[in-house]
């Protein structure tokens, strides 16, 4: 095993453990903090894949904004922050079956793909991934239209949220 593989396995184990704890812990705030751990793990995996921009954006957006908003929402809406309900409901057998099915499907799909066992080619030394990403986002031949449509959609959602929450006098 190479050093990269060992690091990947450690990070993946931490991420999976944190993600599992999100759904098993009874304390809602604890669950939010475990979720932050899982999001950090995903950021670390992005970093291992040399996608440094995505890794940092993952931390800034998910940990810095969304997770904090989760915690705020939990703290402001719950009277008692320890969730008292049962952890499982009647549909758990069906849910477990569905997730096992999805896992098996992905497993067999990826087993047939030869990319799993290959090692990735190294980047050329002068390759700037961030510049390439930035260029692709604003170039008309690449992703400028989806990028702009997504931003318009987000602005519309923002305006809609403000309108719904606005206190009409």
């Amino acid at each position: 095993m190479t050093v990269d593989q060992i690091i990947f396995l450690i990070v993946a184990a931490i991420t999976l453990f944190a993600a599992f704890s999100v759904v098993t812990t009874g304390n809602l705030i604890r669950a939010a903090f475990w979720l932050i751990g899982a999001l950090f793990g995903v950021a670390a995996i992005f970093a291992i894949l040399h996608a440094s921009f995505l890794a940092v954006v993952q931390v800034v957006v998910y940990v810095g904004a969304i997770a904090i908003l989760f915690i705020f929402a939990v703290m402001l809406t719950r009277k008692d922050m320890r969730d008292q309900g049962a952890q499982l409901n009647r549909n758990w057998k069906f849910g477990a079956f569905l997730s096992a099915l999805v896992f098996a499907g992905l497993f067999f799909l990826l087993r047939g793909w030869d990319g799993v066992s290959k090692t990735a080619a190294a980047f050329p030394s002068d390759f700037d991934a961030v510049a390439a990403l930035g260029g692709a986002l604003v170039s008309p031949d690449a992703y400028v239209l989806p990028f702009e449509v997504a931003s318009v959609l987000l602005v519309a959602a923002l305006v809609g949220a403000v309108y719904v929450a606005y206190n009409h006098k």
Partner: protein
Amino acid sequence: MDFHKDPLQIAANWLFGILAGWGVADLWAQVLIGFLGIFLLIALLMVVDILLVWVERKVVSRFQSRIGPNRVGPFGLIQPFADIIKLLIKEDTTPEGADRALYNLAPVLSMMSVLILWAVVPLAPTILGVDLNIGVLYIIGAGAIGTLSIIMAGWSSNNKYSLLGAFREVAVMLSFEIPMLTMMLIPTIFAGSMGIAAITQAQDVWFFFLAPLAAIIFLIAAIAELGRAPFDMGEAESELISGYNIEYSGMKFGMFYAGELLHAFTFGSFWAILFFGGYRFFGLEKVSAFLAIAVLLFKAFIGYWIIMWVKYTLLRIRIDHMLIFNWKFLTPVAFALLMVTAFMNALLAASPTWLYVSGMFLSNVLVAWISLELARFAAHKEREKTENALTADARR
């Protein structure tokens, strides 16, 4: 290679030779040297941090017409060590009903969020941790961990005052992050890179002269991000005792306190790096790496001193005023300035330096003037409305 130009590389090579002589594998030798480098940087920062306690106390006493610490050692220089001994022998208390794991994790994360910022700081042309090409975003990402530590401390203490303090502090930090990030994009536009080292290298003319308004907005947002006066509503002593860190005692409180001081110093150094040329000062940085570090520390201390000056001069602002100031004034001005700067950059890209600098400077002044006039107009309207309402009330 000359020892004065690149001392760390020469030391690393020397160590590598010794370890190779002992028969250590190359990979492990590199890992060991990397860890030693990190240890050296953190040790330097912690020593500066101990000194900062003394600097802060001495400066605040000058602002308040006092003498400050002057009993322990010459000029009270040994005072911080006495403080540390006191913090270490204090009882380590945990409040009843606290979430023990998160309660203990919060001070560590608080200190960590400051220390990891220094990974991207270029101390000299040859001395820097990593030359990340997304350095500016990394700084914001590290700030996210600081926000997390505050909400963790506030919630896990099981104290309503600390929770209220954390809520306020986090609301302020989340809001002021936006103008701060926007203003960090302006040096990025000038330098054509998000890397901190590239931004430093690009400053043949200090970016302060190109974008004085950006530098000022960045400083305001940084002070709010630090939770220092006038934006210290999170720890308003008169109503919240001391905010999110009420329940912490001994060295755990010390971690928050030292983290806050080092954070202020760190933002002073970022101000120096983004707008005042970092380690560059009339070619001094080319003479010796040690001189470059001294220049950077000097500039960082000036930034830190200005942050202290603001803190001990201004009064605390109410939380709603603070958020209104951010969302209705600072953020729109920051966005407008970013758009104007990007436009002017495209317009003046091919022009000589003097035209570029003066064009940028004038557009900054123009944006500042228009936004202040608009703010004045809005304030007059608001005052008229309030006065009319008051006279209508009096008539009834």
